[in-house]
């Protein structure tokens, strides 16, 4: 850290032109490295930076016939769309729905995947370990569309009464609940906003628990077995060893991943929410990305949806910078 700070100081002292000269000298020396980066660089310019000019649309009153550049600027010094978004009555609701889903994901998926990793690590049979691992990340490969299809099927309900002889119109979950007598009438889970988050997060966990656990399992597999044996000789129980050795080993990993997750809170994708949401659950299921999607594609309001997206991206930058800063402080590793 210290040497880096010095380097920065030095650079500032000698000025831009000198810095330019050093970089050029380096370029002459490492032509190969520069060459290696060229294709990737060209990719970024063409497919990211050229279209990024299109973000201008967020400040324009976009008229397709005129194109992006010739369209007139939006009112309020180009900020009309931003103002409109901030004045949307349900704006805070969308933001909150987004944050709530992200946070719930962290609250559930994080501890559960850690527990899974610890449990797998404690298994004695190597063969079983492998089988459990392989099966547990299978769901990660199932596409979101397929998952949404399954959820619809499993959670459906006509509202059959428990007293009815046949529960054929209930999804498998309702059938189960009716049979064991937990509910006296089938519940149409997907049509009820009260269940939306639970469904969303539960399916996240189903799909992601094995996948997220891989990192921890890998970290745990690197632990020196002697540590455990020494602890055993000291009379530690297995639970104690799990806590004092295993958990401590993966702590840095947990911290970094947690910080990174927090940085991504606002960038929740629209795919799954779009497939799971119904008009009846908008209250809970409308998140920023689905709102942008429905305006941009559904209504063709590209200028407005682009402004909302830009607004979202701005918040994301701030969040990630903060998360990155914390990560750097706590673990000396960072995203960049």
């Amino acid at each position, binding site marked *: 850290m210290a040497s880096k700070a010095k380097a920065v100081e030095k650079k500032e002292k000698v000025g831009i032109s000198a810095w330019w000269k050093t970089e050029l000298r380096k370029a002459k020396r490492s032509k190969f490295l520069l060459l290696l980066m060229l294709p990737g660089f060209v990719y970024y310019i063409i497919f990211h930076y050229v279209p990024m000019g299109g973000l201008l649309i967020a400040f324009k009153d976009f008229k397709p016939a005129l194109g992006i550049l010739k369209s007139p600027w939006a009112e309020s010094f180009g900020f009309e769309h931003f103002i409109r978004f901030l004045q949307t009555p349900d704006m805070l609701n969308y933001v909150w729905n987004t944050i709530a889903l992200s946070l719930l994901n962290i609250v559930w998926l994080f501890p559960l995947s850690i527990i899974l990793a610890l449990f797998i690590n404690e298994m004695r049979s190597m063969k079983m370990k492998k089988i459990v691992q392989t099966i547990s990340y299978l769901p990660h490969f199932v596409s979101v569309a397929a998952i949404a299809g399954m959820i619809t099927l499993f959670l459906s309900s*006509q*509202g*059959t*009464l428990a007293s009815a002889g046949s529960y*054929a119109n209930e999804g498998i979950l309702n059938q189960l609940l009716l049979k064991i007598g937990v509910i006296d*009438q089938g519940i149409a889970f997907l049509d*009820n906003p009260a269940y939306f988050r639970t469904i969303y997060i539960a399916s996240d966990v189903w799909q992601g628990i094995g996948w997220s656990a891989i990192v921890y399992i890998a970290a745990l597999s690197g632990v020196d077995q002697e540590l455990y044996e020494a602890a055993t000789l000291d009379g530690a129980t297995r639970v104690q060893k799990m806590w004092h050795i295993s958990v401590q080993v993966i702590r840095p990993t947990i911290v970094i991943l947690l910080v990174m997750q927090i940085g991504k809170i606002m960038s929740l994708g629209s795919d799954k929410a779009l497939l799971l949401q*119904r*008009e009846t659950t908008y209250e809970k299921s409308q998140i920023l990305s689905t709102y942008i999607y429905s305006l941009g594609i559904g209504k063709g309001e590209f200028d407005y949806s682009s402004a909302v997206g830009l607004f979202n991206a701005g918040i994301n930058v701030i969040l990630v910078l903060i998360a990155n800063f914390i990560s750097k402080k706590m673990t000396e590793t960072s995203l960049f």
Partner: protein
Amino acid sequence: MKKKNLLKIGAFVLVASTLAGCGGINPPGKSYTDEDGRKIYTYNYNMYIQGDTTYPETNDNEFDNMLYDDFGIVFNYDRIARTDWETKTNTYFATNDAPDITTGGKETNYKGWANQQMLAPVADSYEDLCEKMPNYVKLFGDSMEEVYNLAASSDGKLYYLPSLRQEKAQMCWLYRKDIFDDLGLEFPETTDEFLEVCRVLKEKYPDKILISSNGQKTSSLTGFFQAFGMPELILSRNSFYDPKDEEFVAYAMATDDARDMYIFMRELNDLNYLDKEILSLETDRFSSRCATDNAMITYNYVYNAEGFTTKTNVNGKEGGLWSPTDTMITAHPEKGTVFKKDPLYSDYGPAFSTSCESEEGKLDAVLKYFDWAATPEGQVYHTYGVEGESFHYEDASTVADDPGYEENWGVMKDGKLVVPVVNDGWYDMANNTKGTKIAEALGIPSMFGKQPKKFWEDRGSKIEDLYQSFMSKTETDNYYYIEDIPMRYTSEEESRYTDLATALATKRDEYMARFIFGDMDPADDNDWNQYISDMNRVGLQDFVDLQNEVFERTQASLGE
């Protein structure tokens, strides 16, 4: 070595990326003069399709050759699945890459693009249309002027070609006749009677759910909307003109009638008469409702009764019988009973981009083709293909060469079309298996195609019967229907309308579920006022003002 390979790949990718492909999907088609000195116009044709139809890969087929020979036009097709249509077409228009010809849109799409000056007008006035496309106008008969007024944009010009609908009235209540007969029940005429009938049914079948539908919210509730004096498409139209009260209702779903409807439906739900998934159910799951007798009443298409009966009598069950009824339910018998008369036309297009105006004669050339397609000759061509190749005439009746065709397709008898033709005729009816064959063999998209005879037998006659039956009740039983009204928005009003309507619809649907199934009680004043104040928060009052203003202005301008 590896490095070289990597570099090679990189270089290859860059070169390939510039060489691959062959330009945009929709660069406006160029016109040229062929060897014979004829002017040939080329169009990019955004055609929406369904199902698995395969089309000839090149333009060397009967249909495209006919277009070339007879009309001097060439179509380059971009065939888009219905499910992807919205995304793709919106992107085309947003990037100023609109195809010369677009089909598959909704009227709001076309009017929106027209306001953005991206479409070329088909006609400047009704008279202009009559002059330009006489055969097309003839299709609609007396209703053409009304159709024109409804479909025209705010500047009075028509920016797309509506298509004639064959279905005049196709939705009604369906019920399990076997069960009703068994209990000596008649289908109810009022909401009170409806509750009573449900009570009797529930007494006999305490474990069954009585009312379901596969139409999802928009059409599942249609029967109930009408029972409370609102038109069937109220969720998408928002406003309507009440012919009985002779007043314009600017936002129906916030009126006392809407509240009464919610209270009624809430009662149906609380008594366990109503399917909990009625707002989101799909056809497949509705079939399982039928299979287990968990649906006895549904608001649906008249011709679906047979299918539902089949779905009911599965796994050894017998005797189930779904039957349509021409009895509609009303909450206000003194005022009358609403039934659904279908709109006069469908709004799938085609529409023509301004690129068609860029060259002299380009628009006219393609309009000439569409006008020909509306003639009896054109219709037969699009339905049967070519005389001698896929069909022949017997006593002035069309007979398809493939005997399988005849069973499925309509006929032309004594030089007259028996089937009145052209349902949503503008777009491809590929899903009709026989149409698929023609499309595959000859490349003819069955635009303007005659409806298959099978269609007529399965559906058309039922639709016609239902329509006649409803219409006769308008004279005897105080039945009435609610017609669409022309609303002409300016460009600025249009975008305000879209914004407000979207925001309102989101709120409305959210409360709809809560009122019928959830934590809000529509009968409770506090809950209802909360709904109204939430709706006001997202612009209900602005919307009402806008609609009233546009309505009055449009009426005034049409009155002139």
